[in-house]
């Protein structure tokens, strides 16, 4: 995929939830975190984990969708759900390994992050800069560095 992706740095996240609020307003017109495409999980140690769709190169949700409502955008590689075709069988919801596709009980369709057609609201409102919208090659470099750090840290463990 040569498009842009959301790059999330969970260590910068302060749990303000503005990303989730902005997402729900942009897509539903109201503050409703259940219907937001952006979730922020809070661990017991008060570490915040912002989660959104990874727009996988081989999306499990699109493979599982029986009506092809969930599909991969040919141009930018985004994984999108066509509201007009979705029958809300929720196979995409159970198939996603990251739990990002979700059922919208008000719209009565399955739904997910669509990058706001190229200008993600979550990026715009994130004050700490925990969410960035970058080209995919920069994103993979960040993950490689983070993985290398984890491996180094494990070598330091007694």
């Amino acid at each position: 995929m040569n498009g842009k992706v959301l790059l999330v740095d969970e260590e910068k996240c302060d749990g303000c939830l503005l990303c989730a609020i902005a997402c729900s307003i942009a897509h539903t017109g109201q503050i409703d975190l259940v219907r937001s495409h952006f979730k922020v999980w809070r661990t017991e140690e008060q570490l915040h984990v912002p989660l959104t769709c990874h727009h996988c190169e081989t999306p499990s949700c699109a493979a599982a969708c029986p009506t092809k409502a969930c599909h991969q955008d040919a141009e930018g590689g985004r994984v999108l759900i066509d509201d007009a075709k979705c029958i809300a069988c929720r196979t995409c919801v159970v198939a996603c390994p990251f739990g990002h596709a979700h059922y919208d009980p008000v719209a009565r369709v399955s739904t997910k992050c669509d990058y706001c057609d190229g200008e993600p609201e979550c990026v715009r409102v994130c004050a700490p800069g925990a969410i960035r919208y970058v080209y995919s090659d920069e994103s993979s470099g960040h993950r490689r560095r983070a993985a290398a750090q984890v491996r180094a840290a494990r070598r330091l463990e007694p």
Partner: protein
Amino acid sequence: MAPLVVPADLLARIDATPRTGRPQISWEASIAGYLYLGGLGAGAYIVAVVAGWLGLTLAPARITLIGGWVWDWSRALVLWGPFATALGASLLIFHLGKNWFLFYTACKNPRTSWLARGFLILSGFIVVGGVVAAVAVFLPSWPDRHLGLWRVLEAVGVVLAFGTAIYTGLLLRSIKYIPAWNAPLIPFLFLASALSTGAMGVLMGAMVHRLLVADAASVHGLARGVEAIEPLLIAIEATLLVLYVRYLKKGKPEGLLSAGLWLSGSWRYGFWGGIVGLSLALPFALALVNLGLRSDLLAVIASASVLSGGFVLRMGVLGIGVKETPPLYKFALWRAQHPAVGPSSALERP
């Protein structure tokens, strides 16, 4: 512009607890009903047709209509399987969303979607099995006049019925990130349950025939034949269930969690009472006792027990479906437990 701030009391009221470690809630009772009736109908059709090939049928119960058209309603009591499967498929409508009327488009992606493949397999079984049942009831003399073609039609229905029964397990197995569903034994467990519940459903049909015709001999062959194989079917299902639970306990942490839900967790009553008790232990004991007693009442009780337990099994498998913890969350938990390690951003280029 000043940064936006969410009030602390609002933040405190928002539940940011992840759903990790808890069973999924997307596929619920209507999906369990779809899986159950799909398997039950397929199993009943297989048992009824194979029993017919072995000469075990109900005595004909013919009625003659105006014009000399003869119906044999006894066949409807054993060949109802395709209609049960159709009923199960229609239950899905209650699960769908605003575009439920587009359910027929659920066959558009058979290349990768097991739900789409199942739509085609079930449709084929419902059509072929329905034709077999309709001909057997409304044109009872036709099979005798065209025996070769009739056997081919029945056999195609049996193949599609096997496909339907095993598909209900393959659908769950295709969900890779729920260990309790992705187990290799799930399709075979559901197939065994389909045959067991289908056999008992056919036995119930035979008991209804006995009640209406009031002739014990009319059901003797079929009922006793089904009762003779039922302990074997239950034993196979029980073995597969034990192997499945052992597989979960030895696999991924979420699989172990799922097994725990059945054995001692929130699903313990459903598992021990519904799945083990109703579906396996009680009917097995009754079947062994009834081999000597030949009591219709015990046969009905055993049938009802298996039919109930089969549904509990489907509900139980859906109810213990715990999704694997996402990698980023595992990393976050590791980071929380190792605060001495510096931030990964420190390694970023300036």
